[in-house]
């Protein structure tokens, strides 16, 4: 009986080892390209087969994307995955999602390209030397909410009503930036209110439970709060506090996977243009976004997804190229060694605020600029590639 048992167990072990070894041979990155495209060396033939005319890779590539769960900043990635735009270029996508930008930047070993809000981009650039390579959203959806019966709801411009109130929000983020902009517009400072650091979903839960006098939310939470009857008293759009969100790449990917990064950069903005091309495409995109939210456990409905899509302001391909190549003066006049890229200027708008708040140091600003942590080399190479392929931009 014992011998029989030993034989069975040995057989099971051997089979499991064989299965495991067999599995290792078929890594996703080496899988067969999709049937839709048969990459060959003939460029002209290939370019006609892909949606945007981009050239598919001869060998299957693996692209690792980092995204904030439920954030619209990664919308083109979500849509490109759903519509098979990556697949037709012979690119296998592995998407890792995170709850916040700083955490995603810490985990930069797990992705090649990521889309995050500017607070995350700053952590990536200053803390981990991760360059921003393009603007992926111009966010105006950081919103201040109070309850219907709040005095502030009745008179949101009365500064006296804000004094001593408690606000729930994720500190050190664009929500924080928006709150301070609102206070500044009323002649107040952060010292005159109380803040409690919470992530947006916890802030919403706590506010629902009667905590705090106000909250600052972003992403789909904004629409959920609106639908729940909370009163929007200000937002980053109305306060002229637009925050540019950026695509970030790892230096390793830029150096060792350059062609993949250039193609991905171009595909991101071509997909953004595709989404904005028609109402039908917007509807398709909102469905993919809804699916993404459901997969990630983010509360979302069809209506919320469409509303998110409507506030998503990713620049077009031509605007992106302009943003990454146009040169402007430093608004503060602090950096005189060279002109700034428009994208750098957009990033500094938020960063300068954090420097004023003593969250970042003035040296960090210099570090960002001296080390060119807004990198337009990928944009320039993408332009060359698009010209070569005859794709208008």
């Amino acid at each position, binding site marked *: 009986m014992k011998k029989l048992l030993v034989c069975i167990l040995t057989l099971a072990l051997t089979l499991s080892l064989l299965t495991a070894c067999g599995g290792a041979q078929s890594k996703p990155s080496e899988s067969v390209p999709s049937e839709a495209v048969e990459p060959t060396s003939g460029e002209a033939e290939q370019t006609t087969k892909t949606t945007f005319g981009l050239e598919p890779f001869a060998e299957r590539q693996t692209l690792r994307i980092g995204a904030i769960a439920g954030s619209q900043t990664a919308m083109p990635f979500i849509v490109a995955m759903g519509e098979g735009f990556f697949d037709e270029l012979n690119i296998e996508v592995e998407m890792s999602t995170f709850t916040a930008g700083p955490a995603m930047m*810490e985990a930069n070993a797990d992705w090649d390209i990521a889309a995050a809000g500017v*607070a995350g981009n700053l*952590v990536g650039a200053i803390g*981990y030397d991760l360059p921003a390579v393009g603007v992926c959203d111009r966010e105006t959806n950081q919103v201040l909410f109070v309850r219907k019966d709040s005095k502030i709801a009745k008179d949101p411009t009365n500064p006296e009503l804000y004094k001593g109130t408690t606000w729930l929000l994720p500190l*050190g983020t664009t929500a924080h930036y928006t709150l301070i902009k609102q206070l500044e517009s009323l002649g107040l400072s952060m010292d005159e209110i109380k803040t409690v650091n*919470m992530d947006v979903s916890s802030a919403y839960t*706590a506010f629902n439970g009667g905590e705090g006098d106000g909250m600052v939310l972003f992403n789909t939470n904004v629409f959920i709060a609106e639908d729940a009857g909370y009163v929007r008293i200000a937002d980053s759009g109305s306060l002229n506090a637009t925050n540019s969100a950026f695509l970030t790449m790892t230096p390793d990917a830029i150096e060792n996977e350059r062609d993949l990064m250039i193609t991905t950069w171009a595909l991101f903005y071509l997909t953004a243009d595709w989404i904005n091309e028609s109402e039908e495409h917007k509807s398709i995109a909102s469905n993919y976004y809804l699916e993404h939210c459901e997969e990630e456990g983010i509360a979302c409905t069809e209506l919320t997804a469409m509303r998110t899509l409507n506030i998503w302001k990713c620049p077009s391909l031509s605007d992106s190229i302009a943003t990454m190549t146009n040169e402007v003066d430093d608004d503060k006049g602090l950096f005189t060694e060279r002109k700034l890229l428009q994208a750098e200027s957009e990033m500094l708008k938020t960063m300068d605020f954090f420097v004023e708040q003593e969250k970042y140091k003035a040296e960090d600003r210099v570090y960002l600029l001296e080390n060119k942590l807004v990198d337009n080399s990928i944009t320039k190479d993408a332009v060359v590639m698009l010209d070569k392929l005859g794709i208008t931009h």
Partner: protein
Amino acid sequence: MNGKVKESGLGLDVEEFKRKKQKNAYMMTMLSVVGILSFLLLWQISVSMEWVNQKFLASPMQVLNLFLVKLTDASPDGNTLGMNVLASLQVSLTGFTLAVCIGVPLGLLMGWYRGFDSLIRPIFEVVRPIPPVSWIPLIIVWLGIGLQAKAFIVFFSAFVPCVINSYTGIRQTVPVLINVAKTCGASNFTIFWKIGIPSSMTMVFTGIKVALGNAWSTLVAAEMLAASAGLGYMILMGRQFARPDIIILGITVIGAIGMLFSSLLNIAESKVLGWKKV
């Protein structure tokens, strides 16, 4: 005799023995100090020689410098170090004290009274493996975001070892002692009070020490719930603004305070359980 007490029968020199013991203790202390200094030196060298990127790991000197700066400077988290320490002490000590006050008696009662054990144990066994952090969504709804909510998370992490160790400690009471007390006519409660509890104290103190460690280690999670001050909050803000020096300072201060409280507990233990060393 020259001040020495010789026990000729055993050939032991008590003074010599004491001196050797002291010397040994001194050597052990010095070894600990050398160990810490060597660690700090290696850390400093590895950062200074750029074996490790300074952006990812601040040097001990940088942390020390930041410690001095943070005593008066509130940036970037908006609080001085003292304010953060006080806020964390409030949270951790509230949770820890509650855990000891509730957990130890509960464990002792469960260990002594079979009926009580049968009543409570199934619930405790279900609740025990739940990670304290997983309570956060419910805690926000039940207790809000104030001190009580954060203290609850700390309480939960500290409560479990208090119960388990007290339970195990009292179950290990030597049966001979119990039988002697019974023979002398002591009531069950008297035996529990005068034999069970004292004999369980070693395990109870071990549980309290584990609970203290858990209380401090859960602090960051508790302050992730909601906070505007505290060492955990300071660490989170260090993360938010890419400041590893702030993170390391927070970690170091938590470790130092934890060690201080652990030493205080050791002193309390040796006072309370001094009789056991006889």
